[in-house]
């Protein structure tokens, strides 16, 4: 199959030209890498300059200001993001870790293959589809947008990510550890929890943090679940503000004050997400990578 596409080596062409062509093509790959990284630096650069210009202490302590009134902050959105993501962890992490332990313990059963496959498919699904799911199972039955609905959406996105990293991390634990524990008469469940999962704990925690970083930046599944709220609310059954949704509404608004706030919000959001990602990489020595 591959052979058909393979061009033959044209030895007849003088080496000098082939060498020039080779150098040229390889420089093209370097150019591609540079071009790819330009947007990264542009985005981060604009975030830092525009974001810091509009960032102030009030941003963290004040509520959103009405149109025309300068100043104000996103205190409620910051608290909302923490609440929604935290609740998503409470729901998503136990499911993900449990399923991951199951997959690691039963690596080659047909059922495991199906679960693994479903988790992989779920990881690639558009997050807005998950938002519709949360709308159908939480917003509709409860009769309104709520923080809980937003958390359910984010939890569904977290589960497959946590499952796959947990499985991978637990599979790395040497089987001898497990056997030693079983040979000492420790029951299987205790071995799994106190020895195997314990050994893989830092890896599992890494996976959870990467999943948190991923869902903290999600906007689409929150638009019609957590919805957003201009006022202070920490209630689970009422709409709640989140950083991402607030940045989105401000960014597409026609008001200069709000657009400035959007840059500040984006800076804080990106700083949060990158701090989690970079922190994890730094602690694990660069080995950690989000599953794709």
């Amino acid at each position, binding site marked *: 199959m591959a052979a058909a596409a393979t*061009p033959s080596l044209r030895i007849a062409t003088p080496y000098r030209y082939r060498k020039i062509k080779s150098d040229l093509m390889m420089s093209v790959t370097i150019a591609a890498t540079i071009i790819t990284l330009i947007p990264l630096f*542009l985005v981060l650069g604009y975030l830092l300059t525009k974001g810091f210009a509009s960032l102030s202490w009030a941003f963290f302590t004040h509520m959103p200001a009405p149109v025309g009134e300068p100043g104000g902050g996103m205190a409620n959105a910051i608290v909302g993001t923490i609440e929604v993501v935290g609740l998503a962890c409470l729901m998503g992490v136990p499911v993900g870790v449990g399923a991951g332990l*199951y997959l690691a313990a039963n690596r080659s059963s047909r059922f495991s293959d199906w679960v693994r496959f479903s988790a992989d498919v779920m990881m690639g699904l558009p997050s807005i589809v998950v938002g519709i799911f949360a709308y159908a199972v939480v917003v509709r039955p409860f009769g309104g947008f709520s923080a809980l609905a937003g958390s359910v959406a984010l939890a*569904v996105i977290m589960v497959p990510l946590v499952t796959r990293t947990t499985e991978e991390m637990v599979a790395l634990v040497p089987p001898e550890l497990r056997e030693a524990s079983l040979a000492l008469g420790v029951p299987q469940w205790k071995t799994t929890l106190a020895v195997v999962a314990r050994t893989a704990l830092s890896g599992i925690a890494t996976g959870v943090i990467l999943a948190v970083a991923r869902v903290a930046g999600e906007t689409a599944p929150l638009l019609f679940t957590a919805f957003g709220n201009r006022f202070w609310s920490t209630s689970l059954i009422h709409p709640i503000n989140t950083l991402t949704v607030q940045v989105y509404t401000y960014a597409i608004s026609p008001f200069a004050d709000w657009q400035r706030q959007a840059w500040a919000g984006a800076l804080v959001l990106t700083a949060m997400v990158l701090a989690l990602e970079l922190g994890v990489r730094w602690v694990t020595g660069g080995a950690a990578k989000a599953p794709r």
Partner: protein
Amino acid sequence: MSELEGTVTDRVAVIRREATKSRAEVRLFGDRIFNATTYLLAMAILALLAGLALSLIFESIPSIRAFGANFFFSSQWDPVNDQYGALPFIYGTFVSSFLALLIAVPLSLGVALCLSEMAPDWLSHRLGFLVDLLAAIPSVVYGLWAVFVMGPWIRDYVEPLLSHLFGFIPLFQGPKVAVGMLSAGVILAIMIIPYISSVCTDVFRVVPHTQREAALALGATKWEMVNTAVIPYGMTGVIGAIILGLGRALGETIAVAMVIGNSPEISASLFKPAATLASVIANEFAEATSDLYVSALVELGLVLLVMGIALNIVARALVQGVRQRRFQEGAK
């Protein structure tokens, strides 16, 4: 045998046996509970995926009843008269995604080859880390940047240039605006490059060194080696990576919703505003008034879900073989 002695020994034996038995039972009981719990949690993943699909199908029944197959061929999206057709969004989704692939695939391949063939190890890991950072930036931040920085650039520099050079093609005609298909395609490309390039880099890294050495021994230059040994060997994985990237592009929502202009029209020009399946859901779902309106939007989501599942199945199947090879080779 004295009766008394017999009873005592028997009793002790019985007590011992029962103690062991109950300890074993407790242990088995604990195992059983633990296994059942993790089994149920694993089952929850299957249930979630099935629930996702079923709830979307269920919610879109009114729309399916009302429009049937016509939903996919009608380009009329008219909430005022409760008439819904998905064609403009399907068109917008595919055109913006293919535009993104057109830009992202060559760049991603370049990045992957640079990281696997050119850069020394220490540099390769640092560059790979930077490319990965592109995937860590939240979508709404890309959207914000695209609205205020990239869109105006495209309007002021890229679109005039394109229409000057290729203005005779309808694709590059029309008024130059910051929000439109072209802006959406470019921001999508930036967002999917890290996904495609990281899989491609993995794929190229597992090409056995013997393949490379054989090509070099035959007198190939570096590029000829890449072209004859590395790329053909990793072709399956590369195609899988591209399909994975396509899946990402189809479903990307917020950044696209912010720059595509959200107009349910099919136009030949890439400069004109358009809309995608995901962007229209993001924009209109919370404000959808009638039940049929909501249902039609959910059906758009169902289309996204089906495409997402299909693309993922194909892509994972193509990439999986390569990934497994990586784990085996990575072990040594």
